């Protein structure tokens, strides 16, 4: 390696790697802690996104959906519309979701049931009214009022399941995030301390370097690089773990359930990639803070 790099780059890399190896116990602990904390951050993000995906139908406080026949005539639709307006004591507000909007949504919700989605076209996808009710317990009354009307296919309202799921995931996310933040703190301190120990075990070398006129950055960079390498190694592990967790989760939990219920918990590739990028960024920030503090505090001129 040393043949192809400039002496200075070569020196920097050599120093950083040998420091990491010298305190390998510490290095491993730092990497693992970074990995665990970032995996938790990643998991929290994925859980949030998966639940959002699964419950996209119930966004904006919607708690009842009246599905219409795809072939409904404008007159029948108008009559239903008037009836909805006529129930202001039960129904707070409604909005109409057309064929195309529902087809687009189905693409997300039915993602894990591709056969069911294949069978749909925009034209055959039922349009719907999305309603917020004054009182969630009125849902049954509203449903039974509309269910048997002409032009209405069926009426769905979220069961206990969706509420529990949202509550659970909110708590789960909060817990994951708190734990992740605590661990990030530990990770930063661990990085700071590997560097501190490295500086300590090289204090003779450092004092000689200062005496003979090494610039501050020449002395600092190998130590900071050490912190960066730890952070990146941790991020790489975390990225792997998140990918694996998502697979496990997919195969265990994310099974299709009866329609109307929230369907499979899944995340898109885009969301996964975003999560991985966030992990790397957090790692870089984390290790910069750790190593920055360490060199600033323990390598003072």
């Amino acid at each position: 390696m040393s043949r192809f790099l400039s002496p200075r780059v070569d020196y920097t890399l050599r120093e950083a790697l040998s420091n990491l190896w010298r305190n390998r116990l510490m290095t491993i602990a730092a990497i693992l802690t970074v990995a665990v904390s970032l995996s938790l951050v990643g998991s929290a993000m994925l859980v949030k996104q998966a639940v959002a995906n699964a419950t996209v139908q119930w966004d904006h406080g919607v708690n009842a959906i009246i599905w219409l026949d795809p072939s409904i005539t404008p007159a029948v639709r108008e009559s239903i519309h008037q009836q909805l307006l006529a129930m202001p004591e039960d129904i707070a507000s409604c909005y109409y979701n057309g064929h195309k909007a529902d087809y687009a949504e189905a693409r997300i919700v039915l993602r894990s049931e591709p056969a069911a989605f294949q069978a749909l076209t925009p034209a055959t996808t039922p349009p719907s009214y999305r309603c917020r009710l004054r009182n969630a317990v009125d849902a049954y009354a509203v449903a039974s009022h509309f269910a048997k009307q002409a032009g209405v296919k069926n009426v769905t309202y979220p069961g206990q399941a969706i509420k529990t799921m949202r509550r659970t995931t909110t708590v789960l996310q909060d817990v994951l995030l708190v734990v992740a933040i605590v661990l990030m703190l530990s990770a930063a301190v661990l990085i700071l301390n590997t560097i501190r120990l490295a500086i300590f075990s090289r204090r003779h070398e450092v004092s000689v370097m200062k005496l003979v006129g090494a610039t501050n950055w020449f002395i600092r960079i190998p130590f900071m690089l050490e912190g960066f390498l730890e952070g990146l190694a941790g991020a790489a592990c975390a990225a792997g773990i998140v990918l694996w967790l998502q697979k496990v989760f997919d195969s265990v939990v994310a099974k299709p359930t009866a329609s109307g219920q929230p369907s499979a918990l899944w995340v898109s590739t885009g969301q996964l990639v975003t999560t991985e990028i966030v992990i790397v960024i957090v790692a870089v920030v984390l290790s910069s803070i750790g190593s920055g503090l360490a060199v600033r505090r323990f390598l003072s001129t």
Partner: protein
Amino acid sequence: MIRFDRVTKIYNKGSSPALRDCSVEIDKGEFVFLVGPSGSGKTTFMRLLLREELPTSGRIWAAGRELGRLSNWRVPYLRRNLGCVFQDFRLLANKTAFENVAFVLEVIGRPRPVIESQVNQVLDLVGLGQKKHRFPSELSGGEQQRVAIARAFVNRPLVLLADEPTGNLDPETSIGIMKLLEKINKTGTTIVMATHDAGLVDMMRRRVVELDQGSIVRDQHRGVYG
């Protein structure tokens, strides 16, 4: 080359000054002994020159610069003009004599071939050409101090500061080190050496600056220890 202009240094507020109102001028090529009892401020004098400390009052010039006006990032470049040798050698135990000396040049970013030739040259000068691949633990005290001198000198500094370089050495070895410093002085390098060793000072008959409780009490050409 070096000029102290009414320099006072107080480490901790309230304690008595380590240097008080010192003015002294040292020219290029001089050989100066700094003598005085323990705690008289000899090491403080050196540390001020290296800008490890700033004076409490007064001004210091070294290598053509006023140290009080030097911004922090320029300090390393100042130090490249000032070689230092200490009583306890301060060699890196995990590097050979050659590597210890080469380290200085690596640190200031010299290219490989230059390092190679300059280090060999300076090791020959101090008489360690044959032992250059030995580790410090495989060298005698006098030989270790020679390596330290080679390290301080390899970059051809304008000034060589030596803080009790023979403090840990027996009289015979000390004389050898003195002869080496004299040889380096002859190349035109200014040498400032702090010492307790009356024998050496008396033998050399060079300029002697005596400190006592931080004040310069004597500045004598061709002086003796006390």
